[in-house]
Every structure is written in C-alpha cells, then in structure tokens.
C-alpha cells in the first residue's frame, strides 16, 4: 500500500511493503510496530531505533505526539490526494459552523450578538469550568447567526452554543 503523508509542508511517500518493511521516499527500512495494549500509544522500532508516541485522529488529520511535539499529519493514498487537489484542496466555507461546548460548564458572557460580523480568532463566548474562565474563539470569519444560550446557563459537553455562517 502506498501513502502520501504530509507534515506541515513536507511530503513523504511511504509504502508499506510487508509486516516488517516500509519505504519512505524510496528508502527501505526495517520496522517493528506495535500498539501498546488498549491505549492510543504506539511503539515503533525503526532500524533498531525505538520511538514511542501518542497517535490519534482529530478534525480530519492524524496527530502524533512525539518527544513533546505535536505533529499534524495528513495521510492519503494517491486517489485521495488527486481528489483533494482536483477540488482545490480547500475546505468549502459555505456551511454553518456550530460552536459546541468543549466541556461542561457555565456560560459567563457572550461578547457577540446575532447578526454581528466577526473575524477568525474573535472571542465568541466565555465559558467557566474548573474554576477557570475560558474564551472560545471563532475558527473562521463570518456572521453570528443564532445564539442558543444565555449568560448563567449551565451547558453540557458538545451542546451547541451558537452558530457562525
């Protein structure tokens, strides 16, 4: 199986040859790869060098926590990559974004109003949890469409708080 894996700007062509071998950009390496029982922790021995990392999938890409650094990795096969490039690579921005509570807590304040134009990175809502006030910011620019909560409300994890169009 051949994959094209992208870390930030760097592209690696990785081919899984068999259980014990893979090639990266044409160079063949010996691998010994294991999942540490029941955890998202993986152990890799690559040509005798031992690595351990957290690997998990989030928001459309793989996250690899290795030696205290978090690497975002996009893993695609050739067909997926071609498809992505054909669509210009960009994620379409037409659909609504729903701000969801990342944890249970209490809404302290909502610094925006319905219909307000906002920029990426603007604070949308202040949520208090674990005795800390947390600013939830907008991942994109747009217009606040619907605010579903009020200051003082207790919200559950993943509850939709407001939407941005």
């Amino acid at each position, binding site marked *: 199986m051949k994959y094209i*894996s992208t870390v930030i700007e760097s592209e690696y062509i990785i081919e899984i040859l068999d259980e014990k071998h893979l090639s990266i950009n044409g160079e063949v390496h010996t691998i010994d790869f294991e999942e540490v029982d029941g*955890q998202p922790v*993986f152990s890799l021995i690559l040509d005798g060098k031992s690595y351990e990392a957290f690997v998990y999938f989030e928001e459309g890409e793989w996250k690899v926590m290795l030696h205290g650094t978090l690497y975002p990795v996009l893993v695609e096969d050739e067909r997926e990559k071609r498809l992505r490039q054909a669509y210009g690579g960009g994620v379409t921005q037409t659909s609504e974004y729903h701000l969801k509570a990342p944890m249970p807590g209490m809404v302290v304040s909502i610094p925006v109003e319905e219909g307000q134009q906002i920029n990426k990175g603007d604070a949308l809502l202040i949520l208090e949890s674990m005795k800390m006030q*947390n600013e939830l910011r907008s991942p994109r620019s747009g217009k606040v469409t619907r605010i579903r909560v009020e200051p003082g409300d207790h919200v559950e994890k993943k509850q939709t708080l407001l939407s941005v169009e």
Partner: protein
Amino acid sequence: MFDKVLIANRGEIAVRIIRACRELGLKTVAVFSDVDRQALHVRFADEAYYLGSPPARESYLRGDRIIEIALKSGAGAIHPGYGFLAERADFAQACIDAGLAFIGPKPSAIAAMGDKAIARATVSAAGVPVVPGTAGEGALSNDELLAIAPTIGFPLLAKATAGGGGKGMREVRNIEEMPRLLNAARREAEAAFGDGNVYLEKLLEEARHIEFQILADNQGNVIHLGERECSLQRRHQKILEETPSPFIADDQEFRQQMGEVAVRAAKAVGYVNAGTIEFLVDKDKRYYFLEMNTRLQVEHPITEAVTNVDIVKEQIRIARGRSLNYTQEDISQHGWAIECRINAEDPYENFLPSTGRISHILLPTGPGVRVDTGVYPGFTISPYYDSLISKLIVHGKTRAEAILRMRRALEEYKITGVRTNIPFHQMLMNSHRFMAGQYDTRFIEDRFSFNSVNIDKSSDADIAAILATLVAHQQIQRSTHIIRRGKRDTSNWKWVGRWERMHR
C-alpha cells in the same frame, strides 16, 4: 492530643496529608462529594463520610457539616489543605469553638493577613517593605487617585479591589492616559466582580515572584525554610516552581536577609504553623512584601526535597502543641528541586480544561522523582474542581541535573483519556531562557509562545509521518476485515440492527 485527623479537602493534597498522618500513626477521616466517592483520598483514608453534591459550596465548603462529621467520627483535628476552607478565619474559629484542633494558624492571623490593608499596615510597622500603592486605603475617586499617582511614580498598575486573575487591571505609563485607563479598569471590574473600585500599585518591571516558607510553633519559635521561585505563571496561576531561586542563586547574604524579613512579617501577626510570605523582587534586588498565604502551599514539596523537612508532619506536630523539630541553624538547602504542575488542560486548544475518564497512566519513577497525585486510571475528571491532577517533582544535585531529570520524567509520564499540559512543560524545559534562569513573572505571557513550534527544524517529522501512516494503515486493514466475527467495531446488536435496516 488528637490521634485522628479529618482532612477537609480532596485531590492530591488530601492524599498528601493522609500519607503524613499514616506515617505518624494517626487515623484519617476523608470527606467526599457525589463525584468523589471513588477518589483516591476516600480509598486511602481509614474512614470516609459523604458531604453533599458536587459544587464546592454544597460539599467541600460546608464547614458546618465538616465539623459535625469530625465530632461524630471522633477526629480531634481538622487539616484544611489549600483552597476551600483553608484561609477562612470563621471556619478556623468554628473548629476551635467545637473543641477541635485546626491544623493551621490562629483565626486572628488568617484574618489579619486576609485583609490587604491590615496586612500591609502590620508588616510595614514591623519594618517590612511593601509595594508602594494605595491597596487597602478604601474606595478612592479618580481625582484622588490622580493626585496620589505621581507620589508613587510611573509606571503603575490600576487593579480591581475585588479582583484577581488579571481582570480590571491596567498598566498606566503616564498621567495623561490615566483617566481613560482608570475608567476602563473600573468598567471591567464592575462587569467581572460587581465592584468597580480600583487601587494603584507601583509596577515593578522584570519582577520576580519569590516566596519564603515559614514554620512557627506555639513556643514562639519562627524559622524559614528558604525560598521558592514562582515567577513562571500563566494567567496569574503558578505553573512551575523551583528552589533555590536562580535569581538569588548563591547570594547567601541576600537570601538570609529576605528570610529574616519573612520571619519578621510572620511574627508581626503572631503567626503559628506553616505559612508563606510572598515577595516581588525587582531586577535591582529590591524586594517588597506582596501577601502571606496562611496555609500549606501547592508547591511545598520542592522545599521538602531540598531541606529534608516534612512540612505536613511539622504542621501536625505544631498543632499538637510540640515545639519545632528544627532550629534555623539546622536548615540548609541541598541540591535543586523543580515542580511541574500537571493540569487537565489542552495546551493546543488555548489551555481549555479537559474533562473525562482517565484511561491510562504511566507514572515516571526512578531516582529523584516524586509524584503527588489524587487520580488513577479509571477515575473521571469532573468540571467541578480545579484542573490540577498531579505534581511532578524532581530533585537533583545541581539545577542542570534537575532540569535533565525533569525532561526525562516528563517524557516517561503518559496520561491518556484526558489532555494534559505535559507538552507545555516539555517545551518550557527546552527553552533557552528557562535553562539560563532568565525569566520574570511575564515570561510565559510575553516571551513564550506555545504555538510557535518550529517543526521544520525538527528531524522527527519523518518519524511522525511514519507513525501516522502505520496507524492509518492498521485501521484500513481492520475496517476491511470488519465482518469477521468478533472483530466488528460495534456491538453485535447494533450490527444486526443495521443489517436489518439494509435489507428492509
């Protein structure tokens, strides 16, 4: 003399206190809220009693119920830990009134140090320098503040009287911009605390936050156990502490001088038991009294590591009316200790608290490593209490050894199920300024950007790519075998349901 202690707290500090009691042969009583029935402090204690529902005001802040439980269980003393009821003079008094020993200072000392005006007046009367400003002078108008400002000198800070956490705070560089900034600070304070009063404080540039640990017994002996450097803070929350302070380093005379001043400040309020005097120190080694914490501190283990004094055991000894085990001459610092506060928060998501079930923990061990924690695999982190889940403390011969040891301990430490700030600490340990000991209280916010990781320079990007690809490959392989019996990723019932729907 008591032989059973009730611990009016939860989490790692309750566990820490239970351990000290156990080693002293004292029985322990835990209290718990609904979400803490399976917490470690409940599992470790000899007795445990239910307090109330999860919010602190219905459980760990219910002083009346806690005293009732102490009396019912036959505990002769209450240890408040930190937070919750630890610095409440009325609770300390209620314990005494109920005939219980309060393992902490006298209510009068808690009250005196808890009131900014009284604390500043008391310690300055004892000859201890305080940060110039109007703290504790009551509600002053803009006109009054504008008149006082030049006597303090610029730059200065306008701070919310009711405040904390940096809200209602403004930096004022000159008199012209002052009215505007005062109004902004008042508005913010009003919105955050319902009290628009502000006070002025001289802004110390490149200031460090250095504190001294105090122990005082009922016989009038007061000693200090040296300093702790606590300048590394994020949103005014300490995140990493070390001792000795790299700023004081081997200036023994300066250390001794500050220590003596700290002892004097404690004596000024007739202090008994363990406490901490916090100072702000500027780049010219001028130091000012900030406040006194009239309780056990989160970061006490680093002092224990370098002085070999068990602070919690000394607290209990003092509360039993005995004199201190040590004189000032007995105390010296050996080696270097660092503590990293491990919080359930996601450094990649603006340090948002992370809740949920801890699925796995691999603890760092080996020489010079101590972990104080209140959680274990299977325990659920709830949103009701603070996010501190453990404290990782290392001790080395030198600062360099301590840093290298902390690096390897952080690398060993694995917690899954909730996100933690371990990667943040790892990056801090690699920062050149931290390694050089060159940091002040604003370092993390002004000069240390967690998101600006330069991945290009790292040679591990290829390894990360391989790991992600192997995991992705493994998943694809598995999903193609999904029909194989017992290998399905969903339950059989769900699978049958889907199969039926498909064939409807």
